[in-house]
């Protein structure tokens, strides 16, 4: 029993050490000359543009459902006028960033994990390495940076659509004008609500890109490992998002309150 615990601890520490080295390789290659702008922009297109539909629909429905669920309770206390502010604060501070990051973990981390995993299996990464090209600079740096940049933008878009969903939800039972709903929503928001939420989305984006690249780049040989890389990329990225969120909330509370 003790030896099993020790062995799994050692394995965990080995993976952690490996991830630190991979982070160092990533960081070193950002500042190396010859940044792959073309590949970076292509990845921004894949990560950002191709996720707009999924993220947009998710954001809208989250806002819509949240409104339908909370409106009757607030109405029972005669507090229906607080619906826009409640929706805005909960969406922008917490629900928007976390849900969108989890959706992106499912879509983007898995696709990066599978893509790099299959490149590893078909020896494409070895081919880059053996020709003296730099696979980390071309494959890893571009993907991680694209995720770090695009996930916050997707979250901002989804937050907007979630508020729109909230507006539609409110208007199913009551009538509130568009301008009144959004005025009340934005009036409730403070700098301390928006900035920490925005900052943590950069970390979520980094985690999604990093985990996807790490799992794909370190996948073993064989087709089965491609599926495993994709699957473990989603699981690990989701876990990282939840952990980072807990840390971010603690830091925000310490600084703001």
């Amino acid at each position, binding site marked *: 029993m003790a030896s099993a615990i020790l062995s799994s601890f050692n394995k965990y520490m080995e993976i952690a050490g490996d991830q630190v080295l991979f982070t160092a390789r990533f960081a070193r290659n950002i500042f190396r000359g010859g940044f792959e702008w073309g590949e970076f922009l292509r990845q921004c297109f894949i990560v950002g543009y191709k996720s707009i539909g999924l993220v947009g629909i998710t954001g809208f429905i989250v806002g819509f459902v949240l409104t339908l669920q909370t409106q009757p309770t607030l109405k029972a206390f005669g507090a229906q006028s607080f619906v826009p502010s409640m929706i805005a604060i909960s969406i922008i501070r917490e629900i928007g960033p976390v849900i969108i990051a989890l959706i992106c973990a499912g879509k983007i981390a898995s696709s990066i994990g599978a893509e790099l995993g299959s490149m590893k299996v078909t020896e*494409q990464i070895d081919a880059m390495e053996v*020709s003296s*090209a730099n696979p980390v600079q071309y494959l890893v740096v571009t993907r991680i940076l694209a995720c770090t940049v695009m996930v916050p933008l997707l979250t901002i878009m989804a937050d907007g659509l979630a508020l729109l969903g909230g507006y539609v939800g409110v208007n199913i039972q009551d009538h509130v004008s568009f301008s009144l709903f959004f005025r009340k929503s934005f009036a409730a928001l403070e700098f301390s609500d928006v900035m920490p939420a925005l900052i943590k989305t950069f970390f979520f984006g980094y985690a999604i890109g990093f985990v996807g690249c790490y799992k794909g780049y370190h996948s073993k040989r064989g087709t089965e490992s491609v599926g495993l890389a994709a699957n473990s990329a989603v699981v690990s990225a989701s876990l990282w998002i939840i952990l980072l969120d807990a840390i971010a909330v603690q830091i925000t509370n310490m600084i703001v309150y």
Partner: protein
Amino acid sequence: MNDTNTQEQEVVTQDTDHVVVRIQHLKKSFGDNEVLKDINLELHKGENIVVLGRSGQGKSVTIQCIAGLMLQDEGSLEVLGKEVKEMTRSELREMRIRIGFLFQSGALYDSMTVRENLSFPLTRVLKLKDKQEIEKRIHESLESVGLEDAIDKYPSDLSGGMRKRVGLARTLILRPEIMLYDEPTTGLDPITSREISELIVALQEKYDTSSIIITHDMPCARITADRIVVMNDGKYIATGTYDELAKSPDELVHNFFK
């Protein structure tokens, strides 16, 4: 007498100078599985060596060690006069520019067209900027493998043989001094296999490369080999020309030539 000695000495010295890959007592294990037990080999400039052996004998591991994709556990491995294990990152990079590696699958970058596959090492490794020069070298390389028409195709649109040819063109575009072929004809029909084998010889003559060819395809070995080494149980058990080994009394060696 003195003259003969001097001449002999010169031949030996010249021979040693022209060794581009020297492997001595190379050992490599994966966990408890000892794949390479005692490998000794010298590849001379302009020579084509074919390594024959059954699957799972560690033939590919040897050339992956030469390319620095994995490090040996024991023994010495010198490529172009330098010990691979002791190379710094930049020395390894320079060494890799001078060697070419054709993977079993071709290892073409599947998100890129043939043109992009070929321009990748030119722009990333040789840092070429001149578009005309890049285009010229791409066309030249594709022409040498007879695939100029495939320039704008994606790897998924190519047949197995065409992929191998493009892989060969991509490798040769950096003008390597040493070529490492990992089962270049595996999975191809006999006619295409023969074409690829003949292409290997033609390109070796054109670019004056030295090659190690891993295969268990006997027609390929016959066409390409100056010298054949037979591998069994992590060791090289026989070496010689195709005709010499075909007459070998050793059953293990002889079985390959039946």
